[in-house]
């Protein structure tokens, strides 16, 4: 008998359509699991039982009428930066405490239209800024595999929820690696689409030219299905592509035999990469080679400059995106201010955490008159070079493989004193954001008992290529994302 907790969309879909289990029962099983473990994992900020009950009810009606799709009745958790109408959404920040959006973002609306059931809102680093979820304005999330360690970030809550069996699917966002890195640290699948593949309407903006919404799942199939369901042109997002969502699935079930997989030497030499991680990736590459893939040496010469470029562009854009949080139309507002300037100042000081204020300062500086050319403009030029590196590399290979994160999950509190050490978590993922590429992380074993993730990057619009490699690896390795026991 298929477990209700820990199974895939395919397995659960079979049960639901055969009416062996109802959407309500499936929901309940997950709510029970949340109750059982979330006191320790703390993946969720708030639960949405009424909405879930309503959606499960509708799902059951659809199932009864024989009108169900593959996602009907499947429970999903949603990161706190994604707007759902009437659901308190705070971007992991105190400054948005109590805010209830009057609209639902496009990607989420599409999933709900297809019958998904929202369990609740997951924790994240404040305004998606961070790599450990320790910057949440509420509390940190704990890695289900080792409760004293971070789940990664910024979508740590979403990754942990799936890893702990609390949700079948969860949604995260990826600006510098915020889906892929926590997926690696929590031992689940996490995917970032090509920039423009999924509408950003409803995603509380951090860095507009880098942000994308993507799924966490326990299998590559599940991630692919969810992504295809969310993707596609949105007239409300001028940066969203015309390409149809379902083409992420084209020929994706194929073999990896004969594919050329690029191994970028710079990615194996980054600062702080752990030997255990390198060893796990080595083993993964062997599995792929044994499955018929050809491994090819490639170079991404500007890798060393990626962090610098990212930490100018992202803060610059965020300093502008966060200017709207002034306490006038929504969110926290400091009463008792003599004038508007003081009100802005007090509100933003109390409402924003340290990392957010640090990045706003950095971003403001990078855009300021006299510094714009040396910083923002320069970074955008280096960005062109980084994208060029990938374009060159993809002439020699179909996809690029590497570690997702240089390290396994680190202890909570161990990097919070040194921002730069935290930023280094993203060195292998942020290139993909700068170049707008699709990327996926799949579990590829452990190091020191903690999960390691294998990253596959493909050319723009090449989700199906990345998925194909990932799926082939998943099959060949026999490794499946297990549910963490949360002992």
């Amino acid at each position: 008998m298929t477990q209700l907790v820990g199974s895939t969309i395919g397995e659960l879909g079979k049960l639901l359509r055969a009416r062996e289990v109802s959407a309500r029962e499936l929901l309940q099983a997950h709510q029970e699991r949340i109750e059982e473990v979330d006191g320790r994992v703390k993946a969720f900020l708030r639960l949405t039982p009424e909405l879930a009950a309503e959606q499960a009810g509708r799902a059951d009606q659809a199932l009864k009428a024989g009108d169900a799709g593959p996602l009907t009745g499947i429970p999903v958790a949603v990161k706190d930066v994604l707007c759902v109408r009437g659901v308190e959404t705070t971007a992991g920040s105190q400054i948005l405490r109590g805010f209830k959006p009057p609209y639902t973002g496009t990607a989420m609306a599409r999933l709900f239209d297809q019958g998904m059931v929202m369990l609740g809102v997951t924790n994240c680093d404040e305004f998606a800024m961070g790599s450990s979820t320790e910057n949440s304005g509420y509390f940190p999330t704990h890695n289900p595999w080792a409760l004293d360690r971070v789940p990664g970030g910024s979508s740590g809550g979403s990754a942990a929820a799936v890893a702990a069996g609390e949700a079948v699917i969860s949604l995260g966002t990826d600006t510098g690696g915020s889906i892929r890195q926590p997926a690696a640290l929590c031992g689940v699948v996490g995917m970032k689409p090509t920039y423009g593949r999924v509408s950003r309407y409803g995603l509380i903006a951090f860095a507009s030219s880098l942000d994308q919404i993507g799924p966490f799942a326990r299998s590559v199939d599940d991630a692919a299905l969810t992504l295809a369901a969310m993707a596609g042109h949105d007239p409300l997002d001028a940066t969203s592509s015309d390409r149809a969502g379902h083409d992420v699935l084209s020929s994706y079930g194929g073999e990896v035999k004969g594919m050329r997989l690029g191994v970028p030497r710079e990615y194996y030499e980054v600062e702080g990469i752990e030997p255990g991680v390198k060893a796990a990736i080595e083993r993964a590459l062997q599995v792929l080679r044994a499955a018929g893939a050809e491994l090819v040496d490639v170079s991404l010469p500007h890798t060393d400059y990626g962090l610098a470029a990212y930490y100018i562009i992202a803060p610059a854009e965020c300093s502008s995106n966060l200017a709207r949080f002034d306490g006038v139309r929504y969110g926290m507002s400091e009463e008792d201010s003599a004038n508007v300037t003081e009100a802005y100042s007090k509100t933003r000081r109390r409402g924003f955490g340290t990392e957010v204020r640090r990045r706003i300062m950095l971003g403001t500086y990078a855009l300021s008159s006299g510094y714009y050319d040396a910083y923002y403009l320069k970074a955008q030029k280096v960005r062109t070079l980084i994208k060029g590196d990938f374009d060159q590399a993809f002439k020699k290979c179909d996809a690029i493989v590497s570690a997702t994160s240089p390290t396994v999950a680190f202890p909570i509190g161990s990097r919070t004193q040194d921002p730069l050490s935290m930023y280094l978590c993203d060195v292998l993922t942020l290139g993909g954001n700068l170049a707008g590429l699709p990327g996926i992380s799949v579990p590829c074993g452990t190091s020191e008992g903690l999960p390691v993730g294998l990253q596959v990057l493909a050319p723009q619009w090449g989700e199906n290529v990345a998925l194909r490699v990932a799926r082939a690896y998943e099959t060949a390795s026999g490794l499946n994302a297990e549910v963490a026991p949360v002992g």
Partner: protein
Amino acid sequence: MLARIGLEPGDEEFYAEQLSGILAHIDRLQEVDTDAIPPTAQVVEVANRLREDEPRPGLGQVEALANAPAAVDGSFRVPSIQEEA
């Protein structure tokens, strides 16, 4: 002025120290020759996204103000707008 993030006297040193570390790392970009390189305007090739001039229903006053910390007679209230002299 600094983005009105509410810097208090003690803060400057704390942030200055941390930011200087980050800025030192960022400065390595100056090593890269970008004279002939155009900045990335849009990472993915999209252009000319225009919207037809069709009105669609908005939120209405009640919903527009539902999240407002302070509202008076249908407007958002703010304290006095005096700049520092």
